[in-house]
């Protein structure tokens, strides 16, 4: 993560983690026991005043065997200042593996002014609805937007002057992510994966002891 950030839009950030004895982990930039909430990261690789700030927090749990960390939730948000106030949210990409509400686990929030959202709200749990309250669905668990996508967004929308070679770095990290997700999807949908390979001319033999 540090390489992805520092080779594209940041300068000298370091990823750290805080783990608990119950197997939870917070992964972010400058996460410490006395200050576990990650700090906003200025997106200004050459120094100077940043126009946008990235809040980045990943939460993981150890698997039952205590060997691998699985991401349980994450939030990646862009703000227009380090204060990260409500009306400074540009976009927030959230992921919750096991949502406790009816909204999609992979969703994004945007902030802005709309006056007609209450007119299209049929619920009775609240009186007002803001634009940033909406959970815009994106990609599902497996193919949700990535940090690479968010960083590329800041560059292509010309909010950040990136480092030379940024595109290759993002492509490299994005390819790794895609590879991991495709393999995971194939493991969880082996018959569909085998059918797709067979259609492409591969010879696929099922395991004798699946």
């Amino acid at each position, binding site marked *: 993560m540090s390489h992805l950030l520092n080779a594209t839009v940041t300068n000298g950030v370091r*990823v750290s983690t805080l783990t*608990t004895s119950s197997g939870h982990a917070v992964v972010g930039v400058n996460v410490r*026991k006395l200050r576990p909430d990650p700090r906003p990261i200025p997106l200004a690789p050459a120094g100077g005043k940043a126009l946008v700030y990235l809040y980045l927090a990943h939460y993981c749990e150890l698997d039952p065997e205590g060997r691998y960390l699985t991401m349980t939730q994450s939030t990646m948000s862009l703000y227009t200042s380090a204060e990260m106030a409500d009306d400074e949210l540009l976009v927030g990409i959230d992921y919750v593996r096991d949502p406790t*509400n009816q909204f999609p686990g992979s969703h994004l929030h945007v902030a802005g002014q709309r006056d007609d959202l209450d007119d299209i709200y049929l619920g009775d749990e609240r009186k007002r609805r803001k634009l940033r309250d909406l959970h815009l669905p994106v990609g599902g668990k497996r193919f949700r937007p990535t940090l690479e996508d968010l960083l590329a967004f800041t560059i292509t929308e010309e909010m950040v002057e990136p480092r030379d070679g940024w595109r290759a770095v993002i492509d490299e990290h994005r390819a790794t992510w895609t590879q991991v997700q495709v393999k995971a999807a194939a493991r969880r949908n082996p018959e569909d994966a085998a059918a797709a390979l067979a259609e492409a001319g591969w010879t696929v033999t099922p395991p004798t002891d699946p």
Partner: protein
Amino acid sequence: MTTTIETHEEATEAEVDEIVRTTLAVLGIGLDDLKEQAKLGRFASEAQRRAWFLVSGLGRG
């Protein structure tokens, strides 16, 4: 995105409890209130949305 961790600290469960207490105190909100906001999918502020991620991510949600 893949992640290589560069620095690492560990917290005891008592320290996690203190982290949660401090986080809620700074916001001036109770855990039940924050849970209710999460259930509704609407937070009173961005700071509370981020706090929910921290609190629930540490297993106190």
